[in-house]
């Protein structure tokens, strides 16, 4: 029992970080079908953005709140650039997209290695994240709590944006039926770019959270990309609810496996679990019931 609570809380925070990484993918992969392997590097760009913001605004209490929107915009612009230059030509060719974005990811990693020290850079935690919150007798680090809060805010903001704004409405319509959206007067090209901007921007936000928990270096994106894809796939395409649950489940499973075994074995075990799950339920956690309705 003593070991259970810390792993559960720990895993929840890991799950929240995974969810942040997966949110953007649920837009670009889930909604648009683009396999963007550079998504992890957009996360890295977000983390480095946090570092750069700290070079300008030294007070870390302030710099992290500023870094969040900055990382969103910077990573979003990188995503937009990728969409406009490369991905737009490959919408119906998933394998090509995969190969090309793996290449783009490697180039971004290499660029980060050229610009920043190879051992990575330190991102200072704000003082208000230093403490702990005692939950069920366990001292829960505030930065873990912060990650969960940030993920919750991002999920709420994203779903409200999709549900209540005209842009969100147009994205949902374009996902549902591209041709019909076009003939309703929607510029689906503009929607594609916007979706990519937002999806990549969310990776940037995830990067800021990741920089507060782990190291900020050129390799950091690579460790999130596969789990994030698995979370989106296991949660069900375009299913926010499923994605949240899947992220949490994978996060907690990782924490427990890491407790019982070692970190890297835990990763392998978690992947196997997700893959077995996908074999059993290829449509994800929740099945879409209204499939046949046009």
């Amino acid at each position: 029992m003593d070991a259970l609570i810390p792993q559960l809380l720990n895993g929840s925070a890991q799950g929240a970080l995974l969810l942040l990484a997966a949110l953007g993918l649920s837009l670009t992969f889930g909604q648009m079908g683009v396999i963007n392997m550079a998504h992890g590097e957009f996360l890295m760009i977000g983390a480095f953005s946090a570092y750069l913001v700290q070079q300008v605004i030294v007070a870390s209490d302030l710099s992290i709140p500023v870094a969040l929107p900055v990382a969103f915009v910077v990573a979003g612009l990188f995503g937009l650039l990728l969409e406009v230059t490369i991905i737009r030509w490959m919408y119906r060719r998933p394998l090509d997209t995969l190969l090309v974005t793996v290449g783009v990811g490697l180039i971004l990693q290499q660029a980060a290695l050229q610009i920043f020290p190879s051992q990575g850079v330190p991102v200072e935690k704000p003082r208000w994240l230093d403490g702990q919150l005692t939950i069920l007798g366990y001292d829960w680090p505030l930065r873990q709590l912060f990650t969960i809060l940030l993920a919750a805010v991002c999920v709420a903001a994203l779903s409200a944006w999709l549900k209540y704004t005209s842009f969100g409405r147009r994205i949902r319509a374009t996902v549902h039926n591209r041709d019909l959206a076009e003939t309703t007067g929607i510029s689906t090209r503009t929607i594609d770019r916007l979706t990519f901007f937002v999806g990549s921007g969310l990776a940037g936000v995830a990067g800021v959270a990741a920089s507060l928990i782990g190291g900020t270096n050129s390799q950091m994106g690579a460790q999130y990309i596969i789990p994030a894809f698995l979370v989106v796939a296991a949660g069900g395409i375009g299913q926010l609810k499923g994605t949240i649950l899947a992220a949490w489940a994978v996060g907690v499973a990782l924490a427990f496996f890491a407790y019982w075994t070692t970190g890297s074995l835990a990763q392998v075990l978690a992947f196997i679990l997700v893959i077995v799950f996908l074999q059993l339920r290829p449509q994800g956690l929740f099945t879409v019931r209204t499939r046949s309705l046009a």
Partner: protein
Amino acid sequence: MLELTDIKAGYGRTQVLHGVTVPSADVVAVLGHNGAGKSTLLRLAIGLIKPSKGRVVFDGEDITSLAPNQRVARGMAYVPQGQQSFGQLTTLENLQLAADGRRRRKALIDAQLARFPALEQFATRKAGLLSGGQRQQLAIARALITEPKLLILDEPTEGIQPTIVAEIEQTIMELAAAGMNVLLVEQHIGFALEAAERYVVLASGHVTQTGEGGKAATSTVRAAMAI
């Protein structure tokens, strides 16, 4: 309003339309058996497919290379075959989509809700849960919200319960009487000839007959469809 000149088009390597010309007129009906190429012709008119040869001119402008949304912005509207709506969105959201970015959004939507009371009643219901007839009314309402100069309709009464068929036919006649241009594909030859100023018969991607709507006999049209 819309002229299609010597159109060749198809899907991939399969050519479906072999040099089709459709004259400009206020109300044009396109007639033909299943598979003749009628829907392909309308998809081409709205820009969902591009011709390998030929020109599309709307309101004096060559729009052959424009995307569908640009054609909508210029005053074309399209109601595809098969009562298509955004099923996961509510009825109201379906209408808002068409109204977004326009002035007097609310007035535009309200005008269509008044025209089709069933849509008003089910405004907050997912469009996928509407009946076929209601979905078709929604599709027409969505098209009309954009205040088109030309309304393109692909078999608007196909597979719809008879009570709503009469309503839809009446709507089309009223719109035409009010001066809206219409390009109509219709299986119901009697209604098509009644509504149309000019008609075109398609058979296997060729125009086999054209003429004036009011004067044509159903039998001569049927003969041209069978060629």
